[in-house]
């Protein structure tokens, strides 16, 4: 299940639930709806659906989720 982060258009923030519902119909399993920044996070079934998410009205960007690592506590440089 590829994990994605999605930003919504400024204009879509008014009726954000409608856009989130459309994202669900396009195959997104929603984790978080961040209403202030206009971001939706979740996962999709297969990479092919990415384009489907991009075509949902109100969607600005769809990006694959990245990982971060500051290293173990004893690493030389943090």
């Amino acid at each position, binding site marked *: 299940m590829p*994990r994605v*982060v*999605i*930003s919504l258009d400024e204009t879509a923030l008014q009726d954000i639930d409608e856009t989130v519902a459309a994202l669900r119909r396009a195959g997104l399993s929603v*984790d*978080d709806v*961040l*209403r*202030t*920044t*206009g*971001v939706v*996070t979740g996962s999709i079934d297969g*990479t092919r659906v990415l384009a489907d998410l991009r075509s949902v009205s109100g969607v*600005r*960007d769809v*990006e694959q*989720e*990245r*990982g*971060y*690592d*500051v*290293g*173990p*506590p004893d690493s*030389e*440089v*943090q």
Partner: protein
Amino acid sequence: MATSDGTTGRYLVLYEESATAAAGVQEINDVTGIQTVSLDPSDESSVVAERLSQADGISFDKLRVACVDADSAQLSRLRDAAAGPGPIAMVEPERIVHAIPAAPATEASTLDESVYTWGLQAIGAPGSDATGKGIRVAVLDTGFDVKHPDFAGRTVTTASFVKDEDVQDGHGHGTHCIGTSCGPRKVDGGPGYGVAYEAEIFAGKVLSNKGSGTDRGILAGIEWAINNDCAVISMSLGAATAPDTPFSPLFEEVAVRAMAAGTLIIAAAGNESDRRVGRINPVGHPANCPSIMAVGATDPKTEIAYFSCGTVGDIGAVDIVAPGWDVHSSVPMPKRYAKMKGTSMATPHVAGVAAQIAQKYGSRAWELWARLAQGSRRLPLPSTDVGSGLVQAP
């Protein structure tokens, strides 16, 4: 063709682990038309040298890497191929490498840290009357040691965005960063080490006790900080990037919206350089976004730290620098204190000064950014390494 940024103008194409070298060679040809010559280990070195100078591409089949002369259109198609499924995993500029110079002799420390850390002294914190009082600073990191005695009586708000972990810092990184940005100036048995020592602390845990996290947690942490009216978000975290990789449009938009809400995001430039061998790596994600302030690290001689990422190409710029070498700050009990180095340690120095400026001038967002840049101490070092210079308390 050597370029000024330490690369050769050629590109290295890495094959996927699961693909054969032949498939990689075929894919390069399919997308760019470039014919690569495979090198055989039994070839005479003179033959190898001749082929390297004449061919458009060489495939090092054993290494599963090709080196190609690609123009910008071919490069773009290679990058598309790397981004999609298929035998090409990664494309990056070929670098010029240098012999490792002898390590400089270690000097005995002449730093006087009897009252304040060298970092506080370098940014002029002891001479400033600003304390950060009334300003909310969010530190998105590995959490916080909520029972640390140095923070008794302080206003601390916490939240964890890491699954199955509470905010208690099981790593040390987060408590260290909070100590530098917002820790105390007067401590029993050690130097004062906190910049904005009366700021309100918002400790958001977005990295696990092992030090790892994802976009999801970081975005949730940013949202939480904005909703709590934090003027400053300090993020000592990042993911390494390859030169000329576009910044994330999503994080840039989030940063723009944060700015509109009065929240400045300050992030570590990254530690991927090794200047001891002449390697300068670009600013990592998300510090490479134009609306996020990227912080590099200096050492006590006010030289750029060997690991500090630099401005490479057109994407991602170092905006400012701060002390990031052997920084003394808080870590979870019972250890209480530790010295750490990294752009992670430089970032909270800038966040603390940002809180001081926000208190002193009422500045937020872009005005805060402008005052941080304008107030920084200019350094006789490339702006590509240090941006506007060494951050200074107001």
